[in-house]
């Protein structure tokens, strides 16, 4: 490909040093900066989770006081949601891959891309400052009037952190939309785009339409706390439930910010490991948009027990169930893609299969919670906790890990330990189920969330859950070890280690600074595996 093949010219070898990295405008380097920072936050959030599971080993609240426990689950939520899950796939894999998949040299606005990382870091610093000064105890949802009137903790600082991090998310989405619209290579029509790009496009729509609403909501909360402008203050006639509406108008679609990119990763991985065109390309592409659109109309299902009218509850309940349709379209199409595909059991496949199992359980239990009558019983119990962890950890993080294993050779130019990766996938799958499946039962039995003590009869299930969490922790620690090891001692990766289709596999591993040595022209559909499949069959 290159005129001088002996001389390496990857983006990693371009001028380096701290300054070159911190002032880089290269989307691939920014993706790596994001990857490093979200890993730090994942570790911080994980430590809070460990604290929670340790406390719940015993029925009496003997490890953490009630106040401290409140702070633990609050900080776990804030860190994991705002600083890990929301940026996870878009800001790392998305940042790295979207320009390459679009056959262009960079995102439309490279400087804004760098700005988004700095905003993320600033938001993170504010959140850590809130943590260092004593934490926050409102729950990640910041519900008023507790957050605006009563809580004596660092709500303002944490809200500022989430506000600033929100802008980093807006800028990422904004950059993706313009890039996908305006920067595609000649011949790369919308229906030749990889499904990962479609999913990121849908995600970006949610980011730019939803995130500003949480931003203004947090501004109102901060204004109420610091300036006394009591928008949600019941003493002046303000309505705390309005806060919940505004909050969930973003925070429910935010779930789709977390899972849609994961679904995009899945589409790529399923095609890649089955060596087969994705079944029903158009349906999978449009189901992403459908999820993004319907996702904006379901926030009221968080308010079934918050003085919302029964009529509104019914409408939200029905629309919520509709989300299951595009989600099922995706799941069935992935299964149909794997059917009679040339599936090889390389490490990404293990994460793919794990995702499909866990996401299905998470999605189906979502239907339980969408049914109003059932939700009134299950609301604020561990059933809800288990459900959203199946979606966010079992879905989004499994997909993120799968994507990381699939594209790690492309991103770093190094192969990692296959054995380690498979062990990690199995440990995560087993540990995850052991952690969260008992929580479904606990919730069904009536154990409420957010308490540091519980009746003795729940102990067995809680001990199972805590034991699972420790296996899960080892499952997540393993990749940190073998990925780091691969950077030092890994075998150099070929341009296309999986024999997969896609523009990213046509350039070298790791790619050069401007992604491709020649200008890209596309004249085939996405996932054009036909020749290789025919070759395989014959």
């Amino acid at each position, binding site marked *: 490909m290159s005129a001088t093949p002996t001389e390496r010219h990857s983006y990693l070898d371009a001028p380096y040093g701290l300054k070159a990295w911190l002032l880089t405008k290269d989307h691939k380097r920014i993706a790596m900066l994001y990857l490093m920072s979200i890993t730090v936050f994942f570790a911080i959030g994980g430590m809070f989770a460990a604290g929670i599971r340790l406390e719940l080993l015993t029925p009496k609240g003997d490890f953490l006081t009630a106040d401290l426990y409140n702070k633990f689950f609050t900080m776990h939520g804030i860190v994991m949601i705002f600083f890990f899950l929301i940026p996870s796939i878009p800001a790392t894999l998305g940042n790295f891959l979207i320009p390459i998949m679009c056959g262009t040299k960079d995102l439309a606005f490279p400087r804004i891309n760098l700005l988004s990382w700095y905003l993320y870091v600033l938001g993170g610093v504010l959140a850590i400052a809130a943590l260092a000064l004593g934490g926050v105890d409102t729950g990640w949802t910041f519900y008023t009037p507790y957050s605006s009137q009563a809580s004596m903790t660092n709500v303002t600082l944490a809200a500022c952190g989430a506000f600033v991090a929100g802008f980093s998310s807006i800028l990422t989405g904004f950059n993706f939309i313009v890039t996908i619209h*305006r920067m595609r290579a000649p011949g790369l029509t919308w229906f030749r785009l990889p499904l990962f790009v479609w999913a990121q496009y849908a995600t970006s729509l949610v980011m*730019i339409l939803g995130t500003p*609403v949480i931003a*203004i909501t947090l501004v109102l909360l901060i*204004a109420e706390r610091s300036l006394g402008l009591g928008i949600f203050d019941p003493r002046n006639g*303000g309505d705390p439930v309005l806060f919940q509406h505004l909050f969930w108008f973003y925070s429910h679609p935010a779930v789709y910010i977390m899972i849609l990119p994961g679904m995009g990763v899945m589409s790529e991985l399923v095609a890649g490991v089955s060596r087969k065109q994705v079944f029903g390309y158009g349906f999978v592409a449009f189901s992403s948009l459908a999820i993004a659109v319907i996702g904006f109309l379901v926030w009221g299902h968080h308010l079934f027990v918050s003085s919302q009218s029964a009529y509104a509850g019914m409408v939200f309940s029905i629309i919520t169930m509709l989300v299951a349709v595009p989600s099922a379209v995706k799941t069935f199409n992935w299964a149909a893609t794997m059917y009679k595909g040339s599936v090889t059991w390389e490490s990404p496949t293990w994460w793919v299969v794990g995702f499909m199992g866990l996401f299905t359980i998470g999605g189906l239990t979502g239907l339980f919670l969408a049914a109003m009558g059932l939700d009134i019983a299950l609301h604020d119990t561990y059933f809800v906790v288990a459900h959203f962890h199946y979606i966010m950890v079992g879905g989004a993080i499994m997909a993120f890990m799968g994507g990381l294993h699939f594209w790690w050779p492309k991103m770093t130019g190094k192969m990692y330990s296959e054995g380690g990766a498979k062990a990690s996938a199995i440990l995560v799958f087993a540990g995850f189920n052991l952690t969260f499946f008992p929580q479904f039962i606990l919730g069904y039995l009536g154990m409420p969330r957010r308490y540091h003590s519980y009746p003795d009869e729940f102990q067995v299930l809680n001990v199972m859950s805590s034991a699972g969490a420790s296996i899960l922790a080892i499952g997540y620690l393993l990749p940190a070890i073998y990925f780091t090891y691969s950077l030092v001692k890994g075998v150099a990766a070929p341009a296309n280690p999986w024999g997969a289709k896609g523009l990213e596999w046509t350039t070298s591993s790791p790619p050069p600074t401007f992604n491709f040595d020649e200008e890209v022209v596309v004249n085939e559909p996405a996932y054009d595996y036909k020749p290789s499949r025919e070759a395989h069959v014959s």
Partner: protein
Amino acid sequence: MATHSAGEHEHHPKLQHHFYSMGQQLEASILGMWVFLVTEIMFFGGLFMAYIVYRWKFPLAWEESSNQLNVYLGGINTAVLICSSLTMVLAVRAAQVGSRIGQIVNLILTIIFGSAFLVIKYFEYASKFEHHLVPGAHFSYVQHHVVNGVATEMTLPYGSQLFFSLYFIMTGIHAAHMVVGIGLMLVILAMSWKGKFGPKYYGPIEVSGLYWHFVDIVWIFLFPLLYLLGFHFGK
């Protein structure tokens, strides 16, 4: 830029390396600004939602509180902003036809109009502080006015404090956008001064203009919603 195959592209000095052509670059920046403005609409949208809910809940308070605002100053500010939008669009036009002087004159006028808006807003805010209409510990529902030379006292209905909370947040965030806009115009003015814009390259001035018009339009919504409720005259 060794990978850039020469000859096929125009090589305007302002063409960034990752775009194929000036046209693509312009289209990307204009789409980018529109997408950004969509986020701004959603940002203000949360406030308008709160406004709708509380106005529906407290119609009387909204009417009476609106009467505490100075409709003349608000009206003048509306006119000032509409003028600034006109000079803004003239500045963009001047860039497209390559008139440096036209850009400079119109940008300076835009900055003057924008600043005049903020000065008038300052006096409005000051009078709200004097009348204890700023929400918080010093808010007073009892208001003293001089009507036809007679000192009268009136009590604002319950919910008025919410109106003023929203008034200050909505106009405050709008004013913050004006400050950003004026800063942006100063940068654009400096670029125009150096003669950077012409028929081939006018993206920055055009997208800054879009931003300016957006901030203007927000005020066009705020003015009737906040100032023109109920009977201001002859009550």
